[in-house]
């Protein structure tokens, strides 16, 4: 019968191999190292920001297997073999992602500290809406949700996990709405 397989080498650290922005990255980390710290400190990917470190602000948002998550509230050791995407992995062949373009066009930032989290969150949020996921702003959750229902109120609700202390929210909503129209 399958037992608990302890991944810990003698010093308590664990081996983890992740596909980060398309490349396999093998690491040996302390079990308590968050995914955020592993990305920033071990892989020098400083796009995801460490702000509240409690899952409250959204600045550390990355994608795991295409889903938006908070990298400060999960452990690197729990993601062996998984696909991780950070803001550094959004561009293709030197071309910015449409959401990055839209943020520039609509001035969706001031200091920029929350921006990578905002963009990573928005990219995955549009996919959630395309998949028909409702939100707390959806009038009737019993009905199918379509991309045409993605109003500004829907965008605001779905992006509420990303705080912007410069309060660029109106421009962020405009940028997301524009990227959605283009997608």
């Amino acid at each position, binding site marked *: 019968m399958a037992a608990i397989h302890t*991944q810990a080498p003698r010093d308590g650290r664990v081996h983890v191999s992740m596909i980060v922005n398309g490349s396999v990255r093998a690491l040996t980390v302390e079990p308590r190292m968050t995914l955020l710290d592993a990305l920033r400190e071990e892989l020098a990917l400083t796009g995801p920001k460490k702000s509240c470190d409690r899952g409250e602000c959204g600045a550390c948002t990355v994608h795991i297997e295409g889903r938006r998550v908070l990298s400060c*509230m999960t452990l690197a050791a*729990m993601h062996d073999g998984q696909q991780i995407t950070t803001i550094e992995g959004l561009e293709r062949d030197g071309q910015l992602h449409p959401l990055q373009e839209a943020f520039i066009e609509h001035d969706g930032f001031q200091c920029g500290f929350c921006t990578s989290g905002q963009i990573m969150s928005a990219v*995955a949020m549009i996919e959630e809406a395309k998949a028909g996921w*409702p*939100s*707390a702003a959806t009038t009737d959750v019993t009905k199918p949700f379509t991309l045409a229902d993605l109003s500004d109120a829907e965008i605001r609700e779905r992006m*509420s*996990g990303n705080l912007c202390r410069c309060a660029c929210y109106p421009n962020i909503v405009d940028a997301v709405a524009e990227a959605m129209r283009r997608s």
Partner: protein
Amino acid sequence: MHPFTISSATDPATAIAAHAGDPHLAFIAGGTDLLGLIKDRAALPERLLDINALPNMARIEALRDGGLRIGALARMSDVAAHAEVRRRFPVIAESLLFAASGQLRNMASMGGNIMQRTRCAYFRDEDGLPCNKRRPGSGCSALYGINRNHAIFGWSDECVATNPSDVAVAFAALDANVIVSGRGGQRSIPFTEFHRLPGDTPERDNVLERGDLIMAIEVPARIEGRASYYLKIRDRQSYEFALVSTAAAVATDGARIRSARLAMGGVAHKPWRLRAAEAALQGLRLGDIDALRAAIATSFTDARPLAPNAFKVELAQRVALRALQTAGART
């Protein structure tokens, strides 16, 4: 962060045996509450056992009889998006969507959701202020402290905290069951008996014992399921815990209430069923506001607000009324 080792489990029996035999071991699934507790030093496990690889536990099953079986490892976002959950029990989908943020809902498991610990600031505080939940016997700072968000029902001098889960309120209203595997085999715990009132042992949030693993939450078919609604009132429009919330589900005969289910969040150490009100509502017309209001008031005769949260007594009754009417409009 406090150091610990980590390993992963691939079958429930091994996980249960490991947890039963080791008081310093904690299960981790989504980790969104546990890691916050560890960072705040409100939990100091020496060993984490990652249960995400346990087989078949992320399933969401629409049962033939009209009920649901939601695996403990299903993520909040998947449950909220599931077409049959939305159709059969909109209150479950809504309570999930009104909780946390899109990122957290993608991470947080259903089993972990109902295990969430209170958001009382004294419990989460790192500076060692008295808290009986965190350090039994040290006192309750909230009793005469900052307690605007705290309980109005069922509290004790030892603890006035509230349970933070939204979907737990929906599960309580629907009389769901928590399916638990433990040392003695599998058992089903009625949802309203899963969480505890604080009494003299506020450190215990629920009735689980060491070695218990939540396998699933089962929601029986309910005639009131389709006409159900979750109303949450909070200080911010989004991404905030409830001041007061209500899960309401109604079945009607024409314009009259045949059966009503009401549970509230933000008012007690556990989801709070309004059983007296449910009985008093039977047979009333959904449009008779005065009668509905009087029926709801029968569940508030034993409300005991703390001075700063006395507003919750009136607010809760209005929220219950509006939730009931909105659910009723879905019949």
